[in-house]
């Protein structure tokens, strides 16, 4: 169960996994996520369902190797299984025929907006996506994104690929040029905040997917508490999507950092162990 069928390195820090999960594949909707445990002593981490194939019984997730857990996940090979996979979790994206929509995906957020673009396009929207990364080597899925959008704008911070701009620049231009009925921004929290700040003066409804720390992912622990419109919500069950203009960003930034020291320590330990493994194998 939860067998990894294929693994593909997308960028030096991101990997795509196709995982056998027939029940989840059948039920999942755009905007939902899974909770993954990589090994028996592993933590539970949320990953967005970036694609699914109900007929093949598979889901696709993309992980960024930022911590010990995602690094360990990268060690798994096709044929290996995850310790557990739970989903689909969170509320699906509200898919309607809005008109013209813009989806902004930054870094790993590209994978997250992919199924939403697809669903919105299927619902008859004119779908424009802006995908961006710090540099060209960190971009992925340009082809796949073209297939699910009407227009695709590619930007990099350093101009090494596509247009040299932050994602908010073309976003602002689009809003000024034409009627935009709804915007989604998914990516690093700071990017989502700036997407929100960009659209707010124009009063364009904007949705963000809040990536707070989670444990169970079913509303049981409240680790993922966020404040939206002055009210506390659990991102795992009430979200992950919320009205961007109502989000308390400082709280999100602060809560995301709570375990930064422990995460660093786990990563250091992981790296030490990686170095130690070949020696151990020699000893055997």
């Amino acid at each position: 169960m939860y067998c990894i069928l294929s693994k593909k390195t997308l960028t030096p820090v991101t990997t795509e996994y196709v995982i056998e999960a027939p029940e989840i594949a059948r039920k999942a909707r755009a905007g939902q996520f899974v909770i993954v445990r990589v090994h028996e002593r592993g933590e539970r981490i949320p990953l967005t369902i970036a694609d699914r194939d109900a007929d093949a019984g598979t889901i696709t997730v993309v992980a960024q190797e930022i911590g010990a857990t995602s690094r360990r996940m990268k060690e798994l090979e096709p044929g290996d299984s995850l310790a557990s996979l739970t989903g689909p979790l969170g509320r699906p994206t509200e898919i309607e025929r809005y008109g013209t929509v813009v989806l902004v995906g930054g870094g790993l957020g590209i994978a997250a907006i992919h199924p939403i673009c697809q669903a919105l396009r299927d619902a008859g929207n004119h779908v424009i996506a802006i995908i961006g990364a710090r540099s060209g080597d960190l971009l992925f899925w340009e082809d796949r994104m073209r297939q699910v959008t009407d227009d695709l704008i590619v930007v990099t911070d350093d101009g090494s690929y596509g247009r040299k701009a932050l994602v908010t620049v073309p976003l602002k231009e689009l809003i000024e040029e034409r009627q935009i009925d709804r915007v989604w921004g998914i990516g690093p929290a700071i990017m989502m905040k700036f997407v929100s700040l960009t659209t707010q003066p124009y009063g364009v409804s904007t949705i963000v997917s809040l990536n707070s720390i989670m444990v169970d992912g079913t509303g049981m622990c409240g680790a993922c508490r966020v404040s939206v419109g002055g009210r506390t919500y659990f991102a795992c069950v009430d979200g992950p999507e919320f009205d961007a203009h109502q989000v308390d960003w400082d709280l999100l930034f602060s809560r995301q950092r709570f375990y930064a020291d422990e995460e660093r320590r786990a990563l250091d330990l992981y790296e030490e162990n990686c170095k130690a493994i070949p020696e151990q194998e020699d000893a055997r």
Partner: protein
Amino acid sequence: MATGKEQANARHAMPAQDPQVRACNFDEVALGYDHEMAVEEALRCIQCRRPLCVTGCPVQVRIPEFIKALREGDMWQAVEFLKDNNSLPAICGRVCPQESQCEALCILGRRGEPVAIGRLERYVADWEREQGVRVPEVAPSNGIRVAVIGSGPAGLTAAGDLAKKGYQVDILEALHEPGGVLVYGIPEFRLPKAVVAAEVDYLRKLGVSILFNRVVGKLYSLTELREQYQAVFLGTGAGLPIMMSIPGENLNGVYSANELLTRVNLMKAFDFPNWDTPVRVGERVAVVGAGNVAMDSARSALRLGAKEVHIVYRRSREEVPARAEEVEHAEEEGVVFDFLTNPIAVLGNEQGGVTGIRCIRMTLGEPDDSGRRRPVPAEGSEFEMGVDTVVMALGTRPNPLVFIEADGLERARGGTVVADLETGRTTLERVWAGGDIVTGAATVISAMGAGRVAASDIDAFFQAGSPGPWKATKEDVPA
């Protein structure tokens, strides 16, 4: 000075780890009686002709009978009596509030101390586990498929009873381990996970299959499950934490008790980084609330290295809802109790961390709906308490996920599901419910009892052949 006779008839103390030692480890605190102690304690029972203890037990365990068999040395017979009405005795012996149930009514308690029924229950159940659990004869399969949602005490019990009767039972569990609150909520030092694992093993031997990582309401709806199974038992408990809704509650360092305990118990964060999940508890911790979950949180915080842990409770010692033994153990370990104190704000610094709580003193007024005297804030009594970690242990509500696409399943105020307490039947045909999802947060034993009641009604329903229209009364449902 006690006389010889009084000493001979004194209740046997529970051997326990030294408070100073145990406050630094997660091993079980209460060590259990040895055989000699158990028999001596069993001899204290005067074998009442009309035993009151049994009437104090939510599932009417055959207490005098199992105690008699124990002291006569017929251990298997003791096991049989004990398990006749209680399928999880090793767990109940450890976590039941005996002092307000069976032991509260023990006749010996009127003049002295009651028989230590809970400790004897634990002794007999542990003895059985050490022998290797005997699997009873299972009735031939009747081909009827039952989905049990949740593998907590209610679900485990219902599953076991139904499997024995020949039903084909699938337990659907949302988490990656079986046991529900027994595993994510109650710490190892109070209920070793090996005890829970043994019960789960027993179910597997009965032919029950447990499907993990299945979140009902998300992966399948109740409506879908009713198509795949002839009967559904809802035992999803009360897993949603209640917070205080006071300023500062989202600061870093404010936990729901569920989060703290889940990190520690289910995810083994006490052993970070050997296990991947971290938990951060500072030097001074305030736990708000005084139930068992609050005691578990406070004592876990000590074991995680906190220097000072306070229980902050708005009522007085008299109203503390936790088991007496847990309060006693917490005090022995150095937990400080601040009664008649209620937090009104969590204070923080610029980095988003907790620096303290602002509290107000309370006085007790007239009794409220719960029959306990209502705490009333004492004007002008505000003060600040310097802490860096706050744990909210104010109770839990049922998780509403299971109600997604569950048309026809009626719910009561407070998010519980409407079910007949005599049968477990809900308003939705072929769906039964029991445990905390019906009553709101209660005890392991009452959940177990409800699982048993539902299993028996499920069996009655199918035995009846083609039963008449589904009748689910709304009477007897707690508000």
